């Protein structure tokens, strides 16, 4: 489908479109093939299965699996079976019923095999008496607590200057990560008027592609580079993986505009419809990620664990400092691009008045496709940096998205600088609020600001009034 031949729109050429789509598709397929193998397992026996999952809460309130714990099952003196919890913390033991409808068994967790510092929440409830039924099997639930985490919950609760500073630093890091994603969201909203609920999946996509290259792909292809460059060292793989992921995110972002949203605009589908479509798309993509990547959180191979460095009263890992540095540089570069370069000025012109921009010779469609591309790159980078600090999960982007919305709304929808300021405020607020509320509720705080800011000042801190009515 060739449009005008006059405009020098390199990106419209079929070659580019095909490349975007085929690269995206190939990566998804490869991920399916590689990760799918791990899930292939089948149980031949017909006996009902007693199962359970061992997990322990970390300081974020997230559940982490506890592997390699011995579980034994017995019925009186009659031993039925023993197993060890797997990588994902799950265990399964088939229980023969010998023709009966159900059978009560004692499930024992061997406490010596728990990792150091992890204890049973309720030592009296070991062994557990579980009824295994022919149809539904049985579930054994053991509550586990991490001593260190529970102690930080208990002891480190006072409001001290050190904690305020420490949490503020972590908040700045989170805020900058949110700002990267928020800038893309805000630019797309500015140029097309679309509130893109699928932006969270662009965050996850970046992290997943980087994880994929980091764990499977680049190690084989470009691994020799990592060894060959003394500056990057053995952990350098992730740097290449991240660069590859950013390039792919750029192509994917443009493909999303070219193959979905440009077509919707051409069909004359209204913005409200498009908004609901982004929601459907978000759900379809998110669960495709779950389908391919599975549910458990994973860490990048490189720099997963780092020792903190003391800076005055606060302690940050080197990767946190890198995260802050990289996002600051990228955000400043993006800001300068918007202010100084031709394409940046064109973006602002389209955002300000699309028709006026078009009539003064700006190729609006080209600007929009580039906005999608750059927005996807920024989102992917935020996903990679978030994954570096925490872990890579199939729904990480969706969890971040509402905080990104909070930041964007706080700063004022459609303004790039507002998105930065709003995100920083939200990031710091989220982290510092854990001084007063339990960490599992910290995103509730962020969502509450989102609601409150709409009551008090709906146009945001830096927004213009006419955008909201």
């Amino acid at each position, binding site marked *: 489908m060739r449009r005008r031949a006059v405009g020098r729109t390199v990106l419209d050429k079929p070659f580019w479109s095909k490349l975007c789509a085929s690269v995206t598709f190939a990566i998804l397929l490869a991920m399916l*093939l590689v990760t*799918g*193998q791990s*899930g*292939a*397992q*089948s149980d031949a026996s017909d006996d009902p299965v007693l199962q359970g999952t061992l997990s322990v809460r970390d300081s974020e309130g997230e559940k982490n699996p506890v592997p390699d714990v011995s579980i034994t099952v017995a019925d009186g003196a009659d031993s039925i079976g023993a197993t060890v919890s797997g990588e994902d913390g799950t265990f399964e033991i088939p229980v023969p019923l010998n023709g009966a409808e159900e059978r009560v068994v004692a499930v024992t967790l061997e406490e010596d095999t728990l990792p150091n510092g992890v204890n049973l929440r309720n030592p009296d409830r070991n062994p557990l008496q579980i009824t295994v039924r022919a149809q539904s099997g049985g579930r054994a639930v053991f509550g586990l607590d991490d001593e260190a985490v529970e102690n930080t919950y208990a002891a480190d609760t006072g409001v001290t200057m050190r904690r305020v500073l420490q949490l503020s630093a972590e908040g700045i890091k989170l805020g900058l990560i949110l700002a990267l994603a928020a800038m893309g969201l805000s630019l797309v909203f500015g140029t097309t008027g679309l*509130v893109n609920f699928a932006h969270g999946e662009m965050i996850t996509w970046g992290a997943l592609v980087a994880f994929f290259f980091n764990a499977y792909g680049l190690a084989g292809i470009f691994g020799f580079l990592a060894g060959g460059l003394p500056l990057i060292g053995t952990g350098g793989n992730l740097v290449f993986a991240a660069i590859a992921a950013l390039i792919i995110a750029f192509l994917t972002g443009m493909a999303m505009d070219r193959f979905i949203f440009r077509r*919707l605009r051409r*069909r004359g*589908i*209204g*913005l*409200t*419809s498009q*908004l*609901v*479509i982004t*929601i*459907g*798309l*978000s*759900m*379809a*993509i*998110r*669960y*495709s990620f*779950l*389908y391919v990547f599975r549910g458990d959180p994973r860490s990048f191979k490189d720099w997963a664990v780092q020792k903190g460095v003391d800076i005055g009263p606060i302690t940050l890992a080197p990767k946190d400092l890198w995260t802050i540095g990289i996002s600051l540089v990228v955000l400043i570069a993006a800001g300068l691009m918007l202010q100084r370069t031709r394409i940046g000025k064109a973006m602002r012109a389209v955002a300000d008045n699309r028709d006026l921009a078009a009539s003064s010779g700006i190729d609006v469609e080209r600007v929009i496709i580039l906005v999608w591309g750059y927005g996807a790159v920024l989102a992917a980078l935020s996903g990679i940096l978030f994954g570096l600090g925490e872990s890579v999960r199939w729904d990480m982007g969706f969890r971040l998205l*509402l905080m990104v*919305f*909070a930041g964007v*709304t706080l700063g004022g929808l459609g303004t790039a600088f507002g998105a930065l300021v709003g995100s920083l405020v939200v990031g710091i607020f989220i982290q510092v609020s854990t001084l007063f*509320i*339990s960490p*599992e*509720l910290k*995103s*509730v705080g962020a*969502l*509450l600001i*989102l*609601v409150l800011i*709409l*009551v008090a000042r*709906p146009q945001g801190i830096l927004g213009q009034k006419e*955008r*909201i*009515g």
Partner: protein
Amino acid sequence: MDWGSIFEGAIRAAFDLDAVVFAIAAIGLNIHFGYTGLLNFGQVGFMAAGAYGVGIATTYFGWNPWVALVVGILAAVVLALILGLPTLRLRADYLAIVTIATSEILRLSFRSVSLREFSGGSNGINGFANAFYAWSPFDPQVQYGIRIPGIDLSIKFFGNRAWILLIGWIVVVALLIFVRLAVSSPWGRVLKAIREDEDAVRALGKNAYWFKVQSLIVGGVIGAIGGMVLSIGTQTVQPDVYSTSLTFFVWTALILGGVGRTWSPVIGAMIFWVLLSFTEGVLRQGVENNYLPDWLIDGVQVGQVRFIMVGLGLCALLIFRPQGIFGDRNEMALEDR
């Protein structure tokens, strides 16, 4: 493949608890979106308000079940006021963002450890529906069903399920009559006028903002009734059931049926569950009988296909047939304003 059981499961799904709950929630959403044009992306928040209202009132406070039902409805009214008063003056997508955020606030708060004794944490609230089943005329051990003469297919439900389904479908019919009367009244005509042109409504001296708040309350209360039926039917309130995906499942069912018609959300909900149950039945049997290779799909992944399908289905509907099966394109609030 046992096609008989797949088809039977699909037809059963059209009448089962999920279909009732979706029908009720979609009737509420139809008032918001179909008649008034409000983008409520937090219908699940209203459902949770109803379910937790009943659950907390009966277990934590130990109140009478009738009082508990009133508490559930009041909770939805309060939620609608909190959501609506600040945002209904603003552009449509602000309501969308705030409702989706609030439904997540509710879910995260209900499942939090700090409120565990109140809302039961991630285990939720269980065993509060006994009073309801004590009134049941059906024997829990016996299966009840309606046999269609001449067709060798009988859909049966155990006594307790049959009881909640009977009540649920009676509620659906009552709500349909209510909606029919409401939208053909002067009040309903103002709502439709707001959907078409809010400025014109204001020019005629109507307080469009206040009518939108009322619409949000009425649809939200209906959503809360859906949540109550769900929680009584499953005899439990689980926080993670009330996640944002559920809202968009209801949206898909509503748009599938067609917005802006009285009974189309009910038909939409039934067709939605027939389709889901059918594909899931086919996939599950395909996996169990090893027609589908292990590396492609396994038992856990079958459940995830549902979400992918609904997401793509929602996109496809809006692109190719936004009026759904029975709707009228002229009665859609999806154009730009």
